[in-house]
Structure formats: C-alpha cells, structure tokens
C-alpha cells in the first residue's frame, strides 16, 4: 500500500493525505474530509471529543483501506482519523483515493467513510452551548458469529 491508514491525535493536514495517493497512471483523485460541524439535530455544538480503541482502530482502518484498494484496483488509498478534542471546522477524518478512472476513486472514498461509520472503534462526545455534553448514538459494530469466531 503506497497509502497510509492511521489514527492520530495530531491535526490532519489534507494536503499531506492527498500527497499519499496519485500516480502517473491515474486520471482521478478523490479526497473526502469529515469536519466537526456547529450543529446536530437542532442543537448548537461547540466541539467534539473523539475517543478510540487506538490499537484496534488502526488495525480496522488498515483492513478497510485494504478492502477499498481491492475495489479501487490500485493500492492508492490513504486514510487518517483524528481522535482527542476537536473544535468546529477541525478535520476528523481524511480519505484519499486515486485510480485511472473516476468511478472507482469515488467509490473507494465513499466505501471507506461508510465502513468507518459501521465498524471503526471510535466514539464521539458532543459538546453543546445549552446542554450537557453527551456521547452520540452509534451503530452496533458487526460482531463475528460463532461460525467465524477468531478462535476454536
């Protein structure tokens, strides 16, 4: 993988993530940025604290990027997820993908963000102007079934 999959406490620099993808044979690059917005379900938001199971999150992110690379047909996928205390406008996640044709680059970037929402072990606590901070409702991650249990 020419790209990178990492969970970090440092601010994300979109240009650095973009620079991880792209190649002479590519005609399309897609960059997705998730940013902290100032509202949610009608409430004014002042910031967001991201908590993560760091070691596992890096593994899951690498897995997701690998799956995206398969869909993409190139290994040019990069994804960085930030954790810690973020302010409005801060980038929480950056995903870049490049490929010879555009459909695959769009598809790969979209796949990575959708899978992050489904299974990255990350949680966020939203801070409000007028109410107590709260952990946002999430999605139940896909737990292995007995048939595919990791041990016998």
């Amino acid at each position, binding site marked *: 993988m020419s790209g990178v999959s990492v969970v970090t406490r440092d601010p994300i620099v979109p240009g650095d993530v973009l620079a991880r993808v792209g190649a002479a044979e590519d005609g399309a690059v897609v960059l997705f940025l998730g940013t902290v917005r100032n509202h949610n379900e009608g409430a004014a938001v002042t910031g967001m604290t991201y908590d993560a*199971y760091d*070691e*596992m999150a890096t593994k899951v992110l690498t897995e997701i990027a690998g799956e995206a690379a398969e869909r993409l047909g190139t290994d040019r996928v990069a994804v960085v997820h930030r954790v810690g205390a973020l302010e409005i406008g801060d980038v929480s996640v950056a995903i870049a993908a490049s490929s010879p044709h555009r459909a695959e680059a769009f598809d790969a970037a979209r796949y990575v963000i959708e899978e992050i929402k489904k*299974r*990255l072990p990350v949680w*966020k606590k939203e801070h409000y102007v007028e109410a107590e901070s709260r952990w946002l409702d999430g999605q139940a991650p896909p737990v*292995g079934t007995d048939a595919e249990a990791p041990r016998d």
Partner: protein
Amino acid sequence: MRVRTLLFATYRELAGTDELELELPGGATAGDLVERLRARPGLDRLPTEPALAVNQVYAPLSTPLSDGDEIAVLPPVAGG
C-alpha cells in the same frame, strides 16, 4: 486465568474506569466475562450482549478466553 478488560466511552463512564483485570475460571467465554462485569456496581447497566473485541478483533460472546487475553467492551461505534 487472568484477562484484561477495556471499557470505552459510555461503558467507561458506567464503570468509572477504563480497564479491569479479572480472574476467570478455565473454559470461560467472553459471555461469561460480560456476566461478571454486569455484577459490578454501575455495570449492571451494561447491555446483556454488548459488542466485544477479543485481542482487537470483533468476536461473539461464545468466544472461549485464554489467559492474558485483552477483551474490549464496545458501545455502538460513531467514527467519522
């Protein structure tokens, strides 16, 4: 056997800690660990079937545990 339990987000707040070391009988499963956790103060509000990761891989409640395992109890995830 001795296993390490990690708690995150709301579950950490219920437990008042992010990590517990527990002694379990041989042959215990991840489900047995959850029952033990739910017997502790605050953690009675843990779901009966929370999502789990054993050694950083999502795993079902039926997963048999081994000495030294790291079991994470995971609230519904909300990344991105």
